[in-house]
Structure formats: structure tokens, C-alpha cells
């Protein structure tokens, strides 16, 4: 954002948007990379069999179209142009890497199958298995959501109680310190026997893994709140309820958020491991299943989906934080 602002300022210096030769070169780079990518894809002969050749061409064309639209819009909107100029190098690099990967796999077979499929082959899995993948995504998201929410709610409650009441801290602390550090996934053998189904067992594990960091960070956040806040609030007529919910909790939120973020990371791990071992659905299950058939391109497809899915979830969490912590200075952007 900072860089974009800087570029924005230099662009403002000009009366109308005029592109310098350097700017034009920068804008042309990703376009050139995309065109090279298209040419390589279309005209270099394949040595492997793939089904989605034309679909990949369409994707590249769409990318080219989007880029052109962005560039044209940039001629009218300074901000769009600035961000395009800022991102052009990294976009070019990513397209370049894709071209190299295609040359190493589909076009030459330099990297052996089935372990290193081309992106076109991965696209085969995304298209051919789309219904199955969609069901897996929904199962994973459901499990993750239920487990994470339960873990976060319990973590917040435990953390607030520990931070606020000395007695609660006294009774809970030893258990938290002793049991908390065990990775949730290590409980799998026990939990699968104790719980009636692998679904409830997984929810318990994800909740447990989330609960620990959320509890610790909420606890230390609440315990570390500036005591003057409470003193001032008390002279203003605040009840204990107000002190906990309207003073301690918001004051501790920067740390609580870190706990929620750490818990989210743990919940991803727990989710996938639980699905790989016990649950008969979800992306983790899909990966083990594809691996058993040595269909590695499907494994990569699932990894790609995970990357998109988990990154989106983290983005949502950060967006929520940005809204809640609007009062804080110097937040990092996700």
C-alpha cells in the first residue's frame, strides 16, 4: 500500500496520465509473458497425454483479457495504473515460472511422471473431479468451521476467566500448561476410540488445537491490560460485567487476535491430518485416496484448492481484525 501511495504521488505530479517508456515496458512485460505462454502451450508439441489443453488456453486468454482490461482502466484511474505497475514484475515472474514448468513437464518430460505433473494435467483433475472435489471442500469447510468456532469460543471463555479471576487461573493453569502443548493430532488414536464417530472426534481435535493458543493469548491479553483503564472505568460507574466485556476484552483484542490466528493455523493442520487418518471425506481424505492410486496430479489439485481456501479464510480473519482494530496504528496488511 505504501509503495502504491508513493507511485500515486509521482503520478499525481503529472497533469494527465502520460506513460513514460519505462512504464510502458513494465506494462508490456506481463502481457508479453502471457503471449509467450500461449505460444508455448499451443505450438510446442506435447510428450504427455492431457485432456484440458483447450481449457488451459482459455484460462491464459482470460488472464490476458483481464490484464488488458486492467491496463486500459489504468489509463483513466491513476490508482489502478499504480497498482498494475507495482505488481507487473511479480506477475511476470509467476507467468514465467508456469511456462518453465510446462516446458519441463508436458513439453519435454524432463521431470518424471507421476510425481511431477504439468499444470495442464492438474487442471484435468480440477475439471474431471470437480464434483468430488466440491463435496470434499464442503466437508472440510464444515468440519473446520464447527471445530474452530467451538475451540475459539471455549478458548476465549477460558482465557477471559483465567485473566480475570485469580482462582480460575489457579485451578486451570496446570492443566493448560501440561495438556495444551501436546499437538492435537497426537490424540488421534485415543480420540477415535472414545468418540462415537470420526466426525465428532475430528471436531473435538480441531477445537482442542484451537482452544490452546486462543486461551493462552486471551489470558495474557486480559492479564496485561493497563490497570488505569479499570480504575477510570470504575470511577465512571462500571460494573464488573462492563469491566470484563467492555474494557478488558477490547483492550486485550490485539493479543486475542494473535491467538485466533495461531489457532487457525493449528486447525488447518489438525483438519487435514484428521481427514487423512480417520474421516472418510474432505480434502485430506482426497489426498490420501489419490496418493493410493498414484494419481499425484490429483494430489496437486487438492493442494492448490487448499492454498486458495486457507488463504481466503486467513484473509477473512484479517479483514475482521482490520475492522475491529481500526483504532490501532501500524497494523500489518495481509
Amino acid at each position: 500500500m505504501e509503495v502504491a501511495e508513493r507511485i500515486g504521488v509521482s503520478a499525481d505530479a503529472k497533469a494527465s496520465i502520460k506513460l513514460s517508456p519505462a512504464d510502458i515496458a513494465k506494462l508490456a512485460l506481463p502481457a508479453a509473458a502471457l503471449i509467450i505462454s500461449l505460444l508455448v502451450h499451443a505450438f510446442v508439441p506435447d510428450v504427455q497425454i492431457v485432456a484440458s489443453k483447450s481449457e488451459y488456453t482459455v484460462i491464459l486468454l482470460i488472464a490476458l483479457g483481464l490484464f488488458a482490461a486492467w491496463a486500459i482502466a489504468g489509463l483513466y484511474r491513476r490508482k489502478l495504473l499504480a497498482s498494475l505497475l507495482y505488481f507487473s514484475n511479480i506477475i511476470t515472474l509467476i507467468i514465467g515460472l508456469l511456462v518453465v514448468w510446462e516446458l519441463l513437464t508436458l513439453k519435454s518430460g524432463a521431470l518424471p511422471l507421476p510425481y511431477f505433473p504439468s499444470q495442464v494435467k492438474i487442471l484435468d483433475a480440477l475439471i474431471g473431479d470437480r464434483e468430488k472435489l466440491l463435496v470434499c471442500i464442503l466437508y472440510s469447510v464444515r468440519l473446520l468451521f464447527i471445530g474452530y468456532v467451538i475451540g475459539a469460543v471455549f478458548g476465549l471463555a477460558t482465557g477471559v476467566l483465567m485473566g480475570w479471576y485469580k482462582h480460575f487461573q489457579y485451578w486451570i493453569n496446570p492443566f493448560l500448561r501440561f495438556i495444551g502443548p501436546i499437538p492435537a493430532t497426537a490424540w488421534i488414536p485415543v480420540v477415535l476410540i472414545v468418540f462415537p464417530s470420526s466426525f465428532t472426534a475430528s471436531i473435538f481435535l480441531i477445537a482442542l488445537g484451537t482452544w490452546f493458543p486462543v486461551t493462552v493469548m486471551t489470558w495474557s491479553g486480559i492479564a496485561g491490560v493497563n490497570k488505569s483503564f479499570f480504575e477510570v472505568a470504575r470511577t465512571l460507574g462500571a460494573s464488573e460485567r462492563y469491566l470484563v466485556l467492555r474494557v478488558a476484552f477490547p483492550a486485550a483484542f490485539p493479543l486475542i487476535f494473535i491467538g485466533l490466528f495461531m489457532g487457525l493455523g493449528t486447525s488447518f493442520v489438525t483438519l487435514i491430518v484428521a481427514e487423512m487418518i480417520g474421516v472418510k471425506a474432505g480434502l485430506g481424505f482426497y489426498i490420501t485416496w489419490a496418493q493410493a492410486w498414484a494419481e499425484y496430479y490429483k494430489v496437486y489439485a487438492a493442494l492448490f484448492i487448499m492454498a486458495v481456501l486457507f488463504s481466503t479464510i486467513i484473509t477473512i480473519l484479517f479483514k475482521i481484525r482490520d475492522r475491529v482494530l481500526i483504532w490501532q496504528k501500524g497494523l500489518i496488511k495481509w
Partner: protein
Amino acid sequence: MVKTAEGGRIAINGVSRVFEDRTDGDQAVIALSKVDLDIREGEFVSLIGPSGCGKSTLLRLIAGIDKPTGGQLKLDGEPIDDAHPSRGLVFQDPTLFPWKTIWKNVATGLEAQGVLKERKEEVDKFIELVGLKGFEKAYPHQLSGGMAQRAALARALINHPKVLLLDEPLGALDAFTRMNLQDELLRIWQERGTTMVFVTHDIDEAVYLSDRVVIMTPRPARIKETIRIDLPRPRVRNSPSFFEYRSRILESLQLVPEIGQPEYIV
């Protein structure tokens, strides 16, 4: 414009505060030792003295956020045993809630007591009273020190306290902002008749503001002397009588060399 609050009468009888958990050598720290002080309705009283003389401790006891280990404090005849909206508090650090806008900070007292809905317009009035109109939506980190302290003042005033307790509220401000806020404080005091208890280490400030200056000493932490400032208001900071009071306080604090004793004793 704002409903005038009536000042409260404070009675402090033989109040001591010993901190068992803090030690000075191997003895528990005696922050206050048998202090007696009466403050009239609507009086402006300053507590002055070097650090460690217990002036902030006394203020916290009056606020009710700390409890005495001996003696009793009363407000209008009622014992003080907990914090209460009738006694507002302002610290040197404005301690505004950083997650709330200025408007919401000022509204805290009403919100905490569940009467914000009926008395919303009072928040605007008090923001205007301290001269922060237009900054309602700002967050504390966007405010200068002086503005933050104004907001803290409005937040303390919103409950119409009988007593306003100020713990070096202007101590961290530059000289100009400080004099400016001193006048604001006097204006609010005269308008509202609130009893003011003002802790400071600035002698000029104490003389300029107070009806009475209470001089405190450390070891033993108690009141050494009380000086009534009989100067007409508005006071003139460079008048000869102002300087007389100033030197009397300096002498009482033993901050001026006595004859045949050329060094400062602090």
C-alpha cells in the same frame, strides 16, 4: 447549558495507607500516616509535595479505587468504600480507551450505567464544553496531549461528579497548553461548582488555581501545612502577592536556602 453539579464535602479523618507488599529497607512502605483534611463544598484544593509524599495515594483513597489501612474518608457524611461516579478521576496520562472514538470515550460513564440512550445529547454538550467539537469521531491516538486531556476531563464530568480528582492532569503538557487548560479548568469549576482536588508538583499552578494549597512531606507521609490563597480571581501570575504565596510554599517545602545555608535542600 449544562446542569450544574453541586460540589461535595470531603472529610478525611486519621487516614493511613501502608503498603505491606512494598518495602523500604525491611519496613513496609507507609504511603500515608494519619492524615486529617476537610474539603468544603465547591472548594479548589491542591495537594503539593515532592514525589513519595503520598499525594497520589490520598487522591486514590478519595476516589475509592484504593482502601485506607486506617482512618476513614467521607463524602457528604457517607463513608467512601468503593469507586463511585460521584467522584470523577483524571490521571496525568489521559488513559482514554484507545479502541473508542472520542465521543464514545466521553459517553463511557453514561454507557456503563445504562443511561446513554436517554442522555445522548449530554455527550455532545460536554464535548463542546471542553472545546473538542468536531473531533467526536477521532480516535485517541489521533489527538495531541492537550486534546486527549480535555477528552479525559469531559469523560470525568459526564456523570456530574460532586468531586473531581485530578492527579497531575497537566503534568505532561507544554507550558502554553498547560496555562490554557488551567484557565479552562477554572472556567468549568466556576460554572459547575464541583469540588476540585488537584495533585500537582508545580507551585505556580497550585497558587494560580487553588483556594487552599495542602503541602505534604514524605517520611512521615503526612500534611505539613495548609496555605489559604487569598487572591482575587482571575489571578495575575506575575503580581507581587502571587510571588509572596509562591515563596511561602517554597519555604514550606524547604526549597529555598535559609540564611547561612547556601545549598538547596531537597
